[in-house]
């Protein structure tokens, strides 16, 4: 049976710095062999036998800041208890820091937050109230410095998007501790409006070439170009058909190459980006095809159409589709499509299984229709 020793007390400091060695003295020289000293921290408890009146604690017990509870035990009897406050040292090394969101919009004055946790060499957050310097370089190249006090183990600072797009760079310093460089992209907001550049008129409807349609610079309400890669959709339509082309902005401008039609057209052009649409522009095409011949080779039952030429007396583009109608009395009209090559179109009528009677041939292209009557023998 272990008797409780009388009046044995712990004598030590109330506060030490992290990593400092702690000297503990007992009030009496009578060291019982069953005496134990117990250190309790957040990380756990450590038990050591007491061998002498003076006890020097190992520094590993005092690395972590916070409360260190010391108990003196004689078997089951608690003789004394003391609480030591371990204080963090000054900030040093790399400061753990986070920033986010990593992109913010200028137009809505969006916030982002830089958070830093300065710590000493034992990874203890520095003392509450310690000041850290939060430094920024904004997109307009202005510098800012904010001194932030440590509160509840972190330092944090909220900053807001300015009016110019670009990078905001940030860094934190606390005592001898420094953070990595952080950055936030301040980006353009939603497009405010879109305008189209003037379009050429009365273009040749050759069904081959492309005309460039482009916007003026698309900006947000603060005048910043929308981000590269923003999609812009162009609608080029007349009353019957719609053309829809897409492109992306580069330096705020989007452009497309619109394919010429083959017939006379008057289009209305509008562009859409985000939730805005542009002014409407007109775009006109004129088709000018010279008259062409339709010849019939009775022996080979072959139709030869052409040469078909345009305004420059050039052949119509290879692959231009001609609609050929073949009508015979008391028979359903046959419609075939045949491409032009070198300005000429050939149709083998043997493949159409026609009757031997008069036949009307109609050839339609670029809004122009030519008729010819032939006799199938």
């Amino acid at each position, binding site marked *: 049976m272990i008797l409780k020793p009388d009046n044995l007390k712990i004598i030590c400091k109330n506060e030490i710095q992290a990593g400092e060695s702690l000297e503990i003295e007992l009030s009496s020289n009578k060291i019982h062999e069953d005496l134990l000293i117990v250190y309790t921290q957040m990380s756990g408890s450590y038990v050591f036998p007491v061998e002498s009146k003076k006890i020097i604690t190992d520094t590993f017990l005092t690395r972590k800041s916070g409360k260190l509870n010391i108990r003196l035990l004689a078997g089951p009897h608690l003789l004394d208890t003391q609480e030591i406050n371990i204080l963090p040292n000054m900030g040093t090394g790399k400061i753990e820091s*986070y920033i*986010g*969101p*990593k*992109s913010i919009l200028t137009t*809505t004055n969006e916030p982002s937050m830089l958070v830093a946790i300065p710590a000493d060499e034992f990874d203890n957050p520095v003392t509450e109230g310690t000041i850290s310097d939060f430094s920024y370089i904004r997109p307009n190249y202005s510098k800012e410095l904010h001194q932030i006090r440590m509160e509840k183990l972190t330092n944090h600072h909220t900053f807001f998007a300015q009016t110019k797009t670009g990078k905001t760079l940030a860094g934190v310093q606390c005592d001898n501790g420094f953070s*990595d460089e*952080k950055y936030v992209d301040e*980006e*353009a907001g*939603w*497009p405010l409006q879109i305008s189209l550049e003037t379009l050429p008129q009365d273009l040749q409807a050759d069904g*081959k*070439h*492309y005309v460039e349609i482009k916007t003026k610079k698309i900006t947000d309400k603060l005048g910043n170009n*929308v*981000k*590269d*890669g*923003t*999609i812009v*959709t162009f*609608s080029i339509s007349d009353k*019957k*058909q*719609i*053309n*829809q*082309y*897409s*492109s*992306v902005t*580069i330096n705020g401008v989007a452009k*497309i*190459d619109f*394919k010429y*039609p083959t017939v006379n057209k008057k289009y209305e052009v509008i562009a*859409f*980006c*985000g*939730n*805005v*649409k542009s002014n409407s522009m007109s775009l006109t095409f004129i088709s000018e095809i010279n008259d062409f011949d339709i010849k019939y080779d009775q022996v080979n039952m072959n139709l030869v159409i052409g040469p078909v030429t345009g305004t420059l007396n050039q052949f119509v*583009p*290879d*692959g*231009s589709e001609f609609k050929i109608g073949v009508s015979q009395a008391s028979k359903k009209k046959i419609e075939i499509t045949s*491409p032009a*090559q070198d300005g000429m179109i050939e149709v083998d009528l*043997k*493949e159409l*299984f026609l009757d031997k009677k008069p036949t009307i041939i109609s050839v339609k292209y670029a809004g122009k229709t030519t008729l010819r009557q032939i006799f199938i023998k």
Partner: protein
Amino acid sequence: MISVWLLVLGNFIFGVFRFSKIWVDDKSALAATMFAVVSPTIMETIHVFGQLPTIAGIGFLLHASTETYKWIKHDKTFYLISALSLFAVTVAAHHVTTIFGMVFFVAPVVLTALMDRCGIEKVELKYNPVKTFISEIWKFRFKLAFFGCAVIFLLIFVMFPYWYWSKTDPITQVPIPHGSRDSFINVKSSGIVFFIIPWGIVLSLLPYLFGRLLSGKNFFMGMSFSLLVILGTGGTTPIPKMLLGENAFNILTLDRFTFWASIMAIPFVGQFSVSLFSGDYSELLSKRTGRILQKVFFILITIYLIAQTIFIVNLNQFRPLQPAQIDIDPITRFLERDEHYKWRFLTLGFGDQVAWLSANTNAKSIDGNYHSARRVPELTSRAIERLENSKFNGVEGLGSLQQFLTVPEKYHLKYIFSNDKFYDPLLHYAGWHRVQRLENGIMVWEKQDVKGLPPRLPQKIIPLYQRIMWGVLPLSCLIIAIIINLYLRLWLFRIKGKENDPSYISTIPHAKIKSKPSFIHLILLLMIPPIMFVWATKDIFFKQAQSHPEKTVMWYYDALDLKRFNEAHSYFDPEYGLDFDQYILEISVSDGMLSSYAKLNSITTEILEQNENAAKILATTRWVTPLQKYEHKDIHLLKKKNNKWYLRPQEFDISIPPDQFISQPTVRYFKQGKRRVSTDKTPHDDVVDRPELFIHHARVVKKDSLISVVGEIQNTDNLPAHITITAEILDSLGRVVTRYNAKFGVQHKLLPKEKTGFKIEFEELAWREDGKHKPGILNPKEFNPFFFEEEKLTCRIFAKAVAENTDIYKYGNLQNYSVVKKENKFCVEGSIVNTGVDEITIPELIVSYYDKDCNIEWVDYHFIAQAVRPQREAPFSHPLTESYHVQTIYKINDDNLYVNGLQQATFLKGRSMEPCVGNYMEHKNKKIKLDLNSFVGIPSLY
């Protein structure tokens, strides 16, 4: 590996020799052994199928059968021990061989041995009456019973862990089609692989074999042989199904029966060959044809044998059944790098090499070789062998694969290694993107935003004793069998002096052949091989493809499907002047779904008009593509010249783009990933924020009894986004009924400020918990819809995005589109123009339908078959869905919309989005919007 094969083959050949001596004399047994080396069935099993356990199993079974015969014949305990030891090894090598071997091999051997016992007791060798035979069986009954029980005990004991596992975790796999169950007349390719080739020249000896086997002492073996032959015919007749029962018929592969029958025939083939070259048949042939023709006959038979051998050994060269060898090192390095092994992977187009890859990496795959062992409901409920060759399983296989690709997060599936570009469009449109091409040519595909495997995976605890049994018993059986059959036998015979004991002499007396040789057998031997050859190759050499216009069209499409362009070109009318070089060039630039990613499923033809020299044929072709089934109609004009029908070549687009050299200003993206080269986890600074999204509206709708979720979503961020949209349907009690991701009905990649409609179609089995769902009825349809039991449903939508930097091509444009009326249906028709610098291999049209207030009502998607090269056009036509077909069940409110894990309503901060801003088309008081999604098969990057 080669040494193992040689040992196994050596064991098999020796087994054939010993087994043959039960039935034929020594000389014939030797001839049989030589024939076994070039036996077509063995060559096919080794060189084509590579089935090592089967050969090992049958080898040991033949030895075991011989020992069993000797035990019964001489009643010596040593042979019983030897036989049982060999049976144990057979079980360990291939348990199915033991199970069926007992019936087909051992039973006839036992009965034959009992017959021989009766014969040996009497001075003359003649067959005993039935009464004597039965009394012999009765005398031996206890020993036979013991023998049977011992074999059954071995079968259970050696493989006990397997039986235990099968019983406690039964196989739920639905039957997987196999060519051996086909009708060999209807499916010629199956007939060739599973009947003609394994029998080979022996097929012409079947009358002789039946004559020999069904007579005299061979009678029981003959019955077994006949049964095996019939069972090996698969679905050609209904008999195998009747005999085996529906279940066994659908589970077993029936080629094993042909294999065993042909093994059983080997001794008698040996006997025939001895007779042919130096016995009765030789005399008969010489008498009837003369010595010169006799020699010609021998030469022809030798030629048949050599040709057969060369053909079978090189079959994989003529018709490769496996892809070329893949170097797996780059793949294993990829998996080991950067903790990629923390996710599951899948291979496509690897063939059997998937097993070799799995054996060389610790990373886990969702797929595997052993079909009976799998537990994933998406696989067990579908009749497909493996996901990795799902294209060969038609719509069934592709449907199963699609489920994995659409909801890969369920299985933590993140990486796919693709060796077959057939699957590329499916991967792209299911939301996967290309990461890199490895040094071995394999393309790595990745799915963003999939969580890794949990650190602890569920594991079935196998009892320790079973693990010990599984590790120790099979090899121990082999060692014991070697000790008994080699060392103990040597001790008995040499040391104990048993070599003079007649019961240990291996000579077995044989009954003389009573039947006379038949000249018909020789004629059949000469004629049947060429007849078989003609039958097998008539579609290649004798098809008379151009004898009829419809035949010409069908063989033309067949040639196109198999990429035999020379043959396809030969069907064209030379009058049109399309030479082969021009034709091949036109083919090479024609890309798209039908040209590059389709397999012809069926073709029907209809004659529209025909006279003596001209015809107009309507060909309807049905294609299976990775995305959908296609039906294509083409009208072909044909002319007859010199009694052959020729096709008019189809017109090729001769339009020329305006520019020779194109430049395209563009924005490209690059994601650094971890900027510091380190094996540590990605630091916070290197994680790109999730792009912000906005779901404009969404609703649950019903069309044709199927429930879908449709909506519209916009990328409101300044980063390009890869989006995943999940819809969760809840019942009236708030329980999740089902959950599925948007598959084809959405643009997975959105540029900043881009909008897309989306549709989520719910499929069966995607979210059933393991073990709680029994596989349903086999559904051959590609899409296996989920049927909701109640109508009071609510829905939650989860949309998440990650920054995307690859496979974004937005240079496809829509030209001249409008709504037209065709055959009483409204369609939207127009064309696609490509103003970029890459070819759009497979364009997809997403058609969104809105009410007059721009609330989305329905979404369609449509894949265009033709590719669009830069500065060129391709037409499209899509039938519109009428709004009365679609019924809204539930409009999803903002509280049930989640973006990047947060409720949309909470972070909107009063931001409102203007509806109805966009390019809409009016149709019947509704609005329609078209969006184009593009898949670039060969981007400039790769």
